[in-house]
């Protein structure tokens, strides 16, 4: 007994097999005849998906478009093509215009156009510093990154932590600097923060939901913004705007995760930031215009988010560029002068929004104690031990002009004008005046000028600058 396959079924199977084989052969030959090309990012060599490739026939006005796939590959049907040019477009890249291709001569037997590279127009974070610098210049840049005033104490402190720096003439860009440990908060301040957070979760639970809503709303607006292709970019360059919005969106996403994780932390402050962002984006969408002022606000929010979260990408973007200009690489309008933070200083429009007080800046005084060759910035040796007093240099003996930090010792706050001040430190335990490491002096004159290049207040609240004071036992 054998299996007998009915003749008609066998015929059908054979027919199907034959047709599949035929179809495969046809498909193979069809692919073989398509003109192939690959679109890559010129900088990263990464394939660019969804790029629009416009084929323009030179012998007629006909043109049609195809798109690249995930691997950046596009295929063009050579039917009716004799000579043609390509125009490759992708948002965020410069449009590529190819030379004229002749099907017989240029495309070749493989029908392969090869690689087409697009130049990105989006401003990416500046490349890492590759310049060798003198130790002073190198440290100056570090101070700017750390929001630390470049005082004599600050220099002495960093030299004490990195003694080999003194012997180096030019510091390599990748040099790993041992940074001062930021002093811990005194217990009272910790308690104050903790109380705030407890209160936040107990009384303002609704705030957390509002916060989450704000984030979602902002993300929605952001997406709308990006896809509003007809938006009239007035002033700001499209790519720069997009870049800022991308940063904000990324930070918002990071922040959303952060909030979901911590729930309580910094909710009140951050909600202001998010709401500010929402208002601006909404205004841009309504007017279909991004103005200079809004551009400035968004950039500022970007910086604040970078500082608060902090996300690597935006922190790098905003802080790698030196002491004066926090974000100088941002373009403005493509043709105009680039905008830097130093030029924002002249802009009065942003001031009301951020409620800046120009006459004063807030500082926190961080004490670093040098003892037995070690630098101590926390623990009982430092905390609650010192009283910091400052006064205008000429008015040492005038009690009325003296300023004292609001709490003894490290991490105390003080508000100062744009002027030099002479600082003195007293040991509360013994009552004696401490000596500064620099020149073994009783006091040190510190100018607050650098802090006045930055804003006094941000959406997050008061902008603080660190005054390091390096004393010895």
């Amino acid at each position, binding site marked *: 007994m054998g299996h007998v396959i009915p003749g008609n079924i066998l015929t059908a199977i054979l027919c199907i097999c034959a047709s599949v084989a035929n179809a495969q052969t046809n498909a193979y030959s069809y692919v073989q005849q398509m003109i192939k090309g690959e679109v890559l990012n010129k900088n990263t060599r990464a394939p660019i998906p969804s790029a629009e490739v416009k084929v323009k026939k030179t012998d007629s006005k006909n043109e049609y478009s195809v798109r690249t796939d995930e691997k950046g590959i596009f295929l063009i049907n050579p039917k009716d093509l004799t000579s043609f040019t390509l125009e490759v477009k992708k948002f965020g890249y410069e449009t590529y215009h190819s030379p004229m291709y002749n099907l017989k001569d240029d495309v070749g037997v493989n029908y392969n156009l090869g690689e087409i590279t697009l130049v990105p127009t989006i401003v990416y974070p500046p490349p890492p510093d590759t310049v060798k610098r003198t130790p002073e210049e190198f440290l100056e840049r570090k101070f700017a990154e750390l929001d630390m005033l470049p005082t004599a104490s600050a220099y002495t402190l960093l030299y004490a932590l990195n003694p080999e720096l003194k012997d180096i003439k030019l510091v390599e860009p990748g040099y790993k600097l041992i940074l001062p440990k930021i002093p811990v908060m005194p217990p009272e301040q910790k308690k104050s923060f903790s109380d705030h957070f407890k209160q936040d979760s107990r009384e303002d639970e609704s705030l957390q939901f509002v916060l989450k809503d704000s984030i979602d709303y902002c993300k929605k607006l952001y997406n709308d913004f990006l896809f509003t292709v007809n938006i009239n970019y007035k002033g700001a360059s499209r790519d720069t705007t997009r870049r800022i919005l991308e940063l904000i969106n990324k930070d918002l996403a990071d922040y959303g995760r952060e909030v979901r994780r911590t729930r309580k932390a910094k909710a009140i402050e951050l909600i202001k930031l998010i709401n500010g962002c929402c208002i601006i984006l909404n205004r841009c969408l309504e007017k279909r215009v991004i103005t200079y002022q809004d551009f400035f606000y968004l950039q500022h929010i970007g910086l604040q988010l970078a500082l608060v979260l902090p996300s690597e990408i935006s922190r790098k973007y905003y802080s790698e560029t030196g002491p004066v200009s926090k974000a100088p690489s941002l373009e403005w309008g493509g043709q105009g002068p680039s905008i830097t933070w130093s030029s924002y200083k002249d802009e009065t429009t942003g001031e009301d929004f951020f409620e800046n007080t120009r006459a004063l800046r807030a500082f926190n005084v961080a004490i670093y104690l040098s003892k037995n060759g070690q630098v101590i910035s926390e623990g009982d040796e430092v905390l609650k031990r010192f009283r910091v007093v400052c006064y*205008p*240099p*000429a*008015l040492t003996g005038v009690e009325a*002009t003296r300023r004292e930090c609001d709490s003894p010792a490290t991490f105390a706050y003080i508000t100062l*004008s*744009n002027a*030099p001040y002479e600082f003195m430190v007293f040991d509360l335990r013994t009552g004696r005046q401490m000596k500064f490491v620099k020149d073994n002096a009783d006091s040190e004159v510190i100018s607050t000028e650098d802090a006045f290049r930055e804003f006094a207040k941000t959406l997050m609240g008061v902008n603080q600058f660190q005054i390091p004071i390096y004393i010895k036992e």
Partner: protein
Amino acid sequence: MIGMGTILQYRVAFITALFAIFGGALTLLLQIDEMETYYRSLAPLLALVVSLFISFMLKMKWSTKARNFLKVIISVLFGLLLIAVYMYTKFFLKATFPFRDSEDKVAYYVKGDKDSYTQVATDFRKKNPGITSDAEMIRMGFEGPHNKRYAWTEESISNNILWLITGYCIVVILFVGAVSFLSEILSLKYPKSTKRSSAPKKRGKNNKDEE
């Protein structure tokens, strides 16, 4: 539209308003916050008093001689005004120091004389010989102009304030005087006399007869 005749008819009010603007403009020009109230209020007040006084003094029958005499007075007043403006500017620069704030705006503050430095200021200048100007001294050693009383004696500062106000008053009085006299002469073209006796319609016609 207001014609010249109307302006001259209400010349006292016009001059007062003019000097109110002058006071405000001068405050903006000199950027001296401490003196702003004086400058703003004194100018229109003096203008009102002086122009009223001049108007009152000149209520008389006009003659060519009197008019020529007035012309001489105006010339002298303008001459004196120029000298007063020069002297006042000179004194202003001597008695004030410019201070650039954190907004990069320059404002002027009244200081004391050089020989009225306090001991603190003298010591500070000795310690810092590189500091050559008072503005620099105030910035580097005294935090800002609000502490200037520690750099100069109160008496010296008050003295300079007094002189600045006096000088300003002299400039305004001379200026108002010159303008008032000028307006009185110009108004002669229209009325018969400064005494308000005839109707405005006849004013133009009778001018010739009087002379």
